[in-house]
């Protein structure tokens, strides 16, 4: 590359013990002119205290309505190599597992066609290839599909589903999160690549109530593993934790939200009927306790960030389902399809399913998709007497 970019402000962020994104951009900038202009424009932002990207435009690959986010510099004369700097979302393998071999192939593609910069990974879960020009999109796409990768979702579509590592490594996983995630992603390929919904739609799969992928906070459908039978318990191991210094009464029993545990100094008793499957005691004593054997998941619906009517957490739709085989997946898709049909029919533009449910009311919504109301769906029954009674004719 020709003369070096002066970046006194960003240079400061190369100091310190945490790995530096500035060093990453600089490394790429040594051989890539887009990365070099990105560095220059970012320094300008640090100088001006404002971003220098224009509103995205619609760009993409043939036949897809999403997967690429258009991005344009508002200083194209000064930084011509980022005047077009589009992001490519690549659907990650479930659980974010890779081999060195496949990573090198992905890097080679991105060396040929883009800035050489990535996010591993974006918030939704995709591998994000940061920055390229419109003319490179098709070849990037074709080379990706040639090694078995496809684009992720964007816009008013099914967004790339993601999950925790589940049964691949975690003893607490109550269903196979990676298998279900792969299956859902394949099942909804059309809805993922061709936006036709009122707004975005996210699936997130967590294997247990620890919810490592934050599905309850940011997924339209949150599938969270749980169980129905008794917690598996090894008394000797509980005693070992106690001997090793864990204060079982203070730190475990007194933190139990079901108030269903008793420790007499030698034996731990759990009244499983009142256990709310919060995971605390299991987290605290992983060698002594584990989820029961009758495992499955709770299906919750409707979480989202603030835009537009305010942030929401997902709420319970189906308290428990078994997810042991493809048949059980099909039953789930029937429910999801009923919901999606209703939402596509009745939802307003840019109205997430959670906001739709608040607008029409959970009771009406549940009725419309053919589910019975159950007490698990609410924290408490209503406390206001303004009831829209409907006397049956």
């Amino acid at each position: 590359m020709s003369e070096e970019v002066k970046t006194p402000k960003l240079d400061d962020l190369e100091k310190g013990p945490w790995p530096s994104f500035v060093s990453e951009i600089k490394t790429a900038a040594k051989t890539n002119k887009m990365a070099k202009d990105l560095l220059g424009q970012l320094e300008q932002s640090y100088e001006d205290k404002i971003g220098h990207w224009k509103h995205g435009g619609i760009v993409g690959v043939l036949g897809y309505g999403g997967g690429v986010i258009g991005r344009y510099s508002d200083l194209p004369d000064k930084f011509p190599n980022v005047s077009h700097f589009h992001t490519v979302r690549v659907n990650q393998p479930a659980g974010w597992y890779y081999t060195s071999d496949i990573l090198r192939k992905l890097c080679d593609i991105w060396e040929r066609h883009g800035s050489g910069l990535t996010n591993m990974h974006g918030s939704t879960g995709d591998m994000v290839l940061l920055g390229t020009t419109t003319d490179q999109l098709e070849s990037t796409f074709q080379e990706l599909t040639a090694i078995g990768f496809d684009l992720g979702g964007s816009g008013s579509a099914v967004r790339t589903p993601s999950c925790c590592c589940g049964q691949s490594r975690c003893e607490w996983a109550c269903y196979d999160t990676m298998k279900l995630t792969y299956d859902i992603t394949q099942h909804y390929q059309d809805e993922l690549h061709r936006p036709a919904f009122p707004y975005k739609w996210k699936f997130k799969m967590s294997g247990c109530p620890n919810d490592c992928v934050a599905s309850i906070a940011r997924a339209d459908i949150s599938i969270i593993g749980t169980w129905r039978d008794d917690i598996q318990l090894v008394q000797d191991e509980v005693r070992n934790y106690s001997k090793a210094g864990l204060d079982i009464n203070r730190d475990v029993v007194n933190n139990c939200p079901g108030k269903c545990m008793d420790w007499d100094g030698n034996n731990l008793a759990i009244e499983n009927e009142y256990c709310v499957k919060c995971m605390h005691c299991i987290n605290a004593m992983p060698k002594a306790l584990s989820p029961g054997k009758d495992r499955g998941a709770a299906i919750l619906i409707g979480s989202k960030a603030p835009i537009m009517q305010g942030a929401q957490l997902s709420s319970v739709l189906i308290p428990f389902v078994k997810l042991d085989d493809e048949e059980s997946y099909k039953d789930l898709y029937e429910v999801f399809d009923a919901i999606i049909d209703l939402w596509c029919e009745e939802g307003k533009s840019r109205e997430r399913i959670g906001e739709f449910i608040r607008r029409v009311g959970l009771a009406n919504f549940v009725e419309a998709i053919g589910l019975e109301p159950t007490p698990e769906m609410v924290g408490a029954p209503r406390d206001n007497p303004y009831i829209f009674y409907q006397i049956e004719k």
Partner: protein
Amino acid sequence: MSETVKKRITDIGPPHYEKFLPPVIKANYGKWKYHEILQPGVMVHVSETNAKLFTVRAASPRLLSIDKIRKFADIADKFSDGFLRFTSRNNVEFLMTDETKIPPLIEDLRSIGHPVGGIGPAISNIVHTQGWVHCHSAATDASGVVKAIMDELIDDFTSMSLPGKLRIAFACCLNMCGAVHCSDIALLGVHRKLPEINHDMLPKTCEIPTLSASCPTAAIRPVTIDGKQTVEVLEEKCMFCANCFTVCPSMKLNNSEFDGLSIWVGGKVSNARTEPRFSKLAIPYLPNNPPRWPEAVEAVKNIVDVWKKNARNFERMGEWIDRIGWPKFFKLTDIPFQKEHIDDFKHAGLTYKTSTHLTQS
């Protein structure tokens, strides 16, 4: 390339994950029995068959060059038979069966600037968004503030001396890519000035009914200025959410002088002990002060320090505040309580104090 690619392949979805799983995982899938944290950033999972899988977790800035990814690939070849994964909080993990390779792996990671940690009662990286690096909506940068905060909190990444887990998240605007609104500490970029309306461009770039409908508080009204159909914003109704900008480029909210960030505390997504909940406002506004945002770093450090000193075992930020009450939180952290702290949007009344459960000290 066009020569070699005959048929265009589409709709294949991601590759099947099984292709990338190490043999020890394939053999023990669904059979893991328990795990133990061996040292900061290192854990072992033990299966019913007594097989062991060692995981070494290293810090990552999320924004990675292909050069660095290739380095990770080389390290994986050297120590973990080429197998690695990334976590939901953007760290990188090496998956191995040979315990003796852990110390030299950690050394190699350190030598390329990636400390190992982030497991157990520790901070496990800050999930964050694009900021000035790559987004048009950003009210602040993301990567820079995160780097500055993690430099400060590095000891809480490389050790395990926190009362409980600490999840910090960063979003550069109210669109909140990622789940920042349910974090122990959330940093959120904010605008504070009315949209700057480009009346010349607006009629050409935006549909006025869509634009009006985009505003959560109905602050946007159609008007005619100099014979042009455009809009105006009712000042008293605007809360600077930038939803209008999302649908219309001619409603610019980015402002170099008045943008900045806010800090929210006490949220969580895990169901452990207490239910998942939103983070609540701690600090309404701090200025954009690049490159290191000292005010934001200091504020986060202070909140973490006070929590560390006062929380009980396992108590997450929000659980600790539940116990001591918000008045004490503001007192202990020495954060001034201001008008902005009191909610005035929908359902605001639910946040008023409706009891005399007051510590009075």
